[in-house]
């Protein structure tokens, strides 16, 4: 058992039971999953991506490349979570990944034997040979062998939310710099949101002994911030992305111990934080060292070993080798030794500072200068290490290797907006580039690695951030608060006299590879894989191979080797890869450049991105005023766009194909009532409204009398038909336009665009009134009788209300418009009533019309009726057809002056092979036509796109035949010609004859009179 009886910030009075791979274990409140597993002597946590090598816990934070686990079961199963970031909770179920049949015995670890065939680029090479079809063979095996965790198949029962947050100053990171920045900004008067990815605030201070001065300082700062109502501290919250306008993407993981999804509480909340200014205090990440077998369980970052000791009371090893090229690892070594471990330091530097050596000596630590690791020995856990020293090789037994290759500032967030990080030779690291307005940095991310500097830096940045967002008050509000000094007696005192709480700049060569895989044969000490990217199994040899094969750009290197492309995004590997490539190319590191940093900094669950927008709430539904009537009268509702519309009514039949025919027949023989509230409706007002419509439509509206309606067609600028509809003149300067349901928003936007940009001089106002009116259509030979019965006070005679006429009135003290229009070919009326009384108007028509045989009909019958009449709609106005194609040229009475007129005269539009609208009638008994079928001449080979296609079909009860509309090459579209309609999806071929697209009542007698 590695858990100590003292030390740490865990609550030993609160044990927590959890399972790992089915084995029950115990941790404590305050543990991470990683610390609890370490405490339970778990050394192997997972298997590596490609070679299936055993891997342990490598870090103590989100940079973890190895210890990825799957948490939860069933629908709550979430894969690829670093155990280092998972807060231990009661009943937590964790599972290792990428192994079979067990973690200790994984069959696919055989991959290591074939590693010469699996080097960088092997994946791409499988695309090429030996035959083009080889990939089909390889793919199955490659996908099975390589991988991470698997997501659950069941629906996730948990709740996720999206929140919009606002702040004057957002501070990312609650380490010493972040706490100081938050306090400075808050005391100046700013509304501050302080974001911390951990479940505790404190950052690196949490890795200090909790009973020491750092702990006291931290507690004091947190107490001061807690007393400030203008400060919001968000722990368990990762800032995963920085976006334009000082927007931060946050992912808040709620405490799984206290969240109860059954009570509606969210498991995770995605926050979009809009701040006037941002202070990034994102700290730094310790760099690993590369040597043979540097991935073995028992090897971890030196700082992580210190964190597990001081924060969690876990001594990760008893015989410890700390390998370092900088001062900071001495803190870990001294603390580990003080906790009872036997510690040796292998320092690659020839002359570590005398103060360091003295402190190590007092701690009973042996320091070996000019000493580097050649190779780690061990399988499931490290057992020994081979050191290479001036005197030769030495083998040292150990059960833990702590490595430290210096520190890399965490520049991800500051780089998300395309700001390239800048290389600083003095610290051999990248720091943030020049940030945008309102963005500041403080602490280790700036390359300043001491705690006292971080606090001063944070204080400065907090004040600057406040000044930026509230310049008027900032001159009076600059706060210089009295912070307790924390630089004395903390950690190791470095030779420059600074606190050693954070490391001095690394003094090692930029690429301190300690292996035989050293680039260019720089070293040749030991056999074994030396990993640069632990998560993606990328070795030093892979980088050399990429270079050798010409992939020398850092972006090419990344893609060829997959380096940095894992869920950890190469947080521990990127710098070494750049260093390696710089060495291979004989260039300086900044000349090699960096890859592009993109969000997210850590993975974000799709469920969190969706929030509530799934299932019923995936999109907002639009309901017509008559919606409830449809539902209560057994309509089968259908989503069309955002609208819910009646598809057909079960009273007609339970089967849609029978129902729509019955509903069509009723319209033709008596009357039908259709809810058409979904039509787009636009009020066009103003002295220049008629002129505006003249320019928008291909046909004229200026001379349209008040009280009359006209069918109109709009073109796009390129001459293609955009939309059709009717417009009614309800006043001298007031028009009522209707559009198709699907194009309502597009037409509205188009009209506004034209008024704003093309004709701003026109005095015209356009307003969407789609929701103002409940709209319904009464169609059929009995429609006038029904209307007269429903509205006995109105004169609906043919003289008073002729075809294309308007009648206005009031209904229940709301406006009422009746426009005589026909879409079905029958005598028909569109009734528009105020939306608030729409349902009453509908019921009134039903009541009045029932004695005349009136029945409601759905959109399936509506579409079929219009096909019989030969009206074009969405399937024909498909963004490719012109006025001539659709037989609408006669509409364009004007010769010029409308949108699309000029480009509509292009020569290509008069090509005789262009398709034009035709009617088609099935000539085979018992067969049917299908929309989408391709038209070929009889005996013509069935290949290519044919001569045209069927766009819409229906069974016509009047004709007792399947009929349809189609678009057919003009040169072939003679009435009477026969074609074969091929429908490849069902393998059908049926004969159809070209006829007029108007199947019924070609003279329009039914709707006139």
């Amino acid at each position, binding site marked *: 058992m590695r858990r100590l009886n003292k030390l740490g910030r865990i609550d030993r009075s609160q044990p927590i039971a959890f399972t790992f791979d089915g084995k029950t274990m115990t941790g404590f409140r305050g543990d991470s999953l990683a610390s609890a597993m370490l405490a339970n002597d778990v050394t192997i946590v997972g298997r590596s991506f490609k070679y299936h090598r055993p891997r342990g816990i490598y870090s103590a934070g989100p940079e973890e490349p190895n210890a990825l686990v799957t948490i939860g079961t069933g629908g709550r199963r979430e894969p690829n979570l670093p155990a280092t970031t998972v807060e231990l909770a009661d009943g937590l179920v964790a599972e290792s990944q990428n192994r079979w049949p067990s973690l200790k015995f994984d069959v696919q670890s055989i991959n290591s034997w074939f590693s010469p065939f699996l080097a960088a680029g092997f994946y791409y090479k499988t695309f090429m040979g030996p035959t083009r079809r080889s990939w089909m063979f390889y793919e199955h095996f490659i996908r099975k062998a390589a991988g991470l965790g698997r997501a659950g198949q069941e629906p996730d029962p948990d*709740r996720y*939310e*999206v*929140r*919009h*947050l*606002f702040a004057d100053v957002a501070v990312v990171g609650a380490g010493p710099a972040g706490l100081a920045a938050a306090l400075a900004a808050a005391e100046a008067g700013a*509304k501050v949101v302080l974001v911390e990815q951990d479940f505790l605030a404190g950052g690196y201070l949490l890795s200090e002994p909790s009973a020491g001065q750092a702990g006291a300082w931290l507690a004091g700062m947190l107490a001061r911030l807690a007393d400030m109502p203008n400060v919001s501290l968000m722990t368990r919250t990762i800032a995963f992305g920085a976006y334009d306008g000082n927007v931060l993407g946050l992912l808040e993981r709620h405490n799984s111990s206290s969240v109860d999804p059954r*009570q*509606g*509480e*969210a498991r995770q909340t995605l926050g*979009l934080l*809009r701040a006037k200014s941002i202070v990034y205090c994102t700290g730094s990440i310790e760099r690993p060292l590369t040597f043979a077998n540097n991935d073995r369980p028992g090897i971890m970052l030196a700082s992580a070993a210190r964190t597990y000791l001081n924060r969690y009371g876990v001594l990760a090893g008893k015989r410890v080798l700390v390998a370092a090229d900088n001062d900071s690892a001495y803190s870990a070594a001294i603390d580990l030794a003080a906790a009872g471990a036997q510690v040796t330091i292998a320092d690659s530097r020839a002359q570590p500072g005398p103060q360091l050596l003295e402190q190590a000596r007092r701690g009973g630590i042996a320091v070996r200068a000019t000493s580097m690791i050649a190779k780690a020995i061990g399988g499931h856990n490290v057992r020994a290490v081979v050191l290479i020293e001036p005197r030769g090789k030495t083998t040292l037994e150990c059960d833990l290797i702590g490595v430290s290759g210096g520190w890399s500032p965490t520049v991800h967030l500051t780089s998300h907006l395309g700001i390239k990080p800048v290389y600083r030779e003095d610290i051999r690291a990248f720091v943030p580039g020049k940030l945008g307005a309102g963005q500041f940095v403080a602490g280790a991310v700036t390359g300043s690695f001491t705690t006292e500097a971080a606090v001063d830096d944070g204080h400065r940045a907090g004040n600057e951030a406040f000044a930026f967002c509230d310049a008027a008050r900032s001159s009076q509000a600059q706060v210089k608060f009295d912070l307790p000094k924390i630089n004395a007696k903390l950690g190791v005192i470095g030779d420059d006299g600074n606190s050693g709480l954070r490391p001095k700049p690394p003094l090692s060569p930029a690429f301190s590879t300690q292996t035989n895989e050293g680039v260019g044969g720089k070293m040749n000490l030991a056999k074994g894989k030396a990993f640069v990217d632990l998560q993606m199994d990328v070795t030093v040899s892979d980088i050399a191979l990429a270079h050798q094969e010409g992939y020398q750009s850092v972006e090419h290197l990344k893609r060829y080797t997959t380096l940095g492309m894992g869920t950890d995004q190469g947080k521990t590997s990127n710098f070494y890869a750049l260093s390696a490539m710089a060495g291979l190319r004989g260039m300086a590191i900044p000349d090699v450049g960096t890859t592009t940093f993109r969000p997210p900094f850590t993975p974000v669950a799709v469920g969190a991105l969706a*929030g*509530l*927008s799934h299932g*019923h*709430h995936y*999109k*907002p*539904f*639009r*309901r*017509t*005023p008559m919606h409830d009537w449809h539902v209560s009268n057994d309509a089968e509702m259908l989503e069309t766009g955002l*609208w819910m519309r009646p598809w057909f009514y079960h009273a007609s039949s339970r089967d849609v194909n029978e129902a729509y025919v019955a509903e069509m027949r009723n319209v033709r023989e008596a009357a039908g009532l259709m809810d058409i*509230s979904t039509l787009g409706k636009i*009020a066009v*007002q*103003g*002295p220049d409204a008629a002129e505006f419509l003249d320019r928008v439509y291909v046909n004229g509206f200026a001379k349209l009398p008040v009280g009359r309606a006209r069918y109109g067609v709009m073109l796009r600028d390129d001459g293609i038909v955009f939309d059709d509809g009717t417009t009614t003149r309800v006043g001298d*300067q*007031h028009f009522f336009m209707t559009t198709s349901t699907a194009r309502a928003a597009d037409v509205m936007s188009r009209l506004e665009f034209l008024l704003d940009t093309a004709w*701003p001089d026109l*005095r015209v*106002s356009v*307003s969407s*009134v*789609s*929701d*103002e*009116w409940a709209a319904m259509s009464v169609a059929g030979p009995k429609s006038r009788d029904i209307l007269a019965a429903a509205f006995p006070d109105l004169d609906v005679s043919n003289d008073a209300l002729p075809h294309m006429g308007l009648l206005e009135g009031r209904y229940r003290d*709301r*406006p009422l418009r009746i426009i005589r229009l026909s879409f079905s070919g029958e005598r028909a009326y569109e009734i528009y009533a*105020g*939306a*608030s009384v729409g349902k009453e108007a509908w019921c009134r028509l039903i009541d009045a019309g029932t004695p005349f045989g009136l029945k409601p009909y759905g959109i399936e019958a509506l579409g079929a009726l219009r096909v019989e009449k030969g009206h074009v709609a969405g399937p024909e106005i498909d963004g490719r057809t012109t006025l001539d194609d659709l037989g609408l040229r006669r509409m364009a009475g004007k010769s010029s002056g409308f949108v699309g007129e000029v480009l509509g005269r292009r020569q290509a539009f008069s090509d005789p092979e262009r398709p034009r609208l035709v009617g088609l009638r099935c000539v085979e008994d018992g067969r049917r036509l299908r929309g989408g079928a391709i038209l070929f001449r009889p005996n013509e080979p069935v290949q290519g796109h044919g001569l045209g296609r069927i766009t819409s079909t229906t069974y016509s009860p009047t004709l007792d035949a399947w009929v349809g509309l189609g678009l057919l090459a003009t040169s072939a579209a003679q009435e009477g010609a026969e074609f074969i309609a091929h429908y490849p999806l069902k393998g059908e071929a049926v004969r159809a004859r070209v006829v007029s697209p108007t199947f019924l009542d070609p003279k329009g007698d039914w709707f006139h009179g």
Partner: protein
Amino acid sequence: MANGSEQANLGIASQDCGIVQFDGWDDAMARFEADLAPRLGGQLPTKVGDTTYQDGKLVIRIAPRRLWLLCDGPPPAIDIDPELGCMLALGEGRVRLRLSGQNIKHVLERCVVVDWDSLQEGEGVQVGFHRVPVLLLRTGPFECDLFAPRSFARSLVEWISEVEIGCRHTGP
């Protein structure tokens, strides 16, 4: 129409409302506003989102050349010189959703992009709510009105109710 549901920490009431829209022509805005202002109670709001409330008339400027008059009852009859602008009744197409309760901030931050703490009482802002355009008007410390398109209103109420469930454990 008026119906309401009382949630644990949030009340939602849905009501009809009278809205009259006034549009002025670009080259006649000064005359348009001078003509309209006295008939709407005095001053007109100058900035988009600002409101004025005089003589029981709440006026909000929702676009540079567009004003809305919001009324609880039937809107007054106001004629506009067609040379200056035009008017349009919009009361049928929108529903007033009245939200009130201690949890209103937490509910709203899960619905719309609005900084409740910065929004003054009487101030309005047009927002996207579940991708639907909505006018939000703050009417009190813990109250606001959402003017939502009628066809979307029920869907939005369902969303608010769902959000509210998750906020019951959140303090005011």
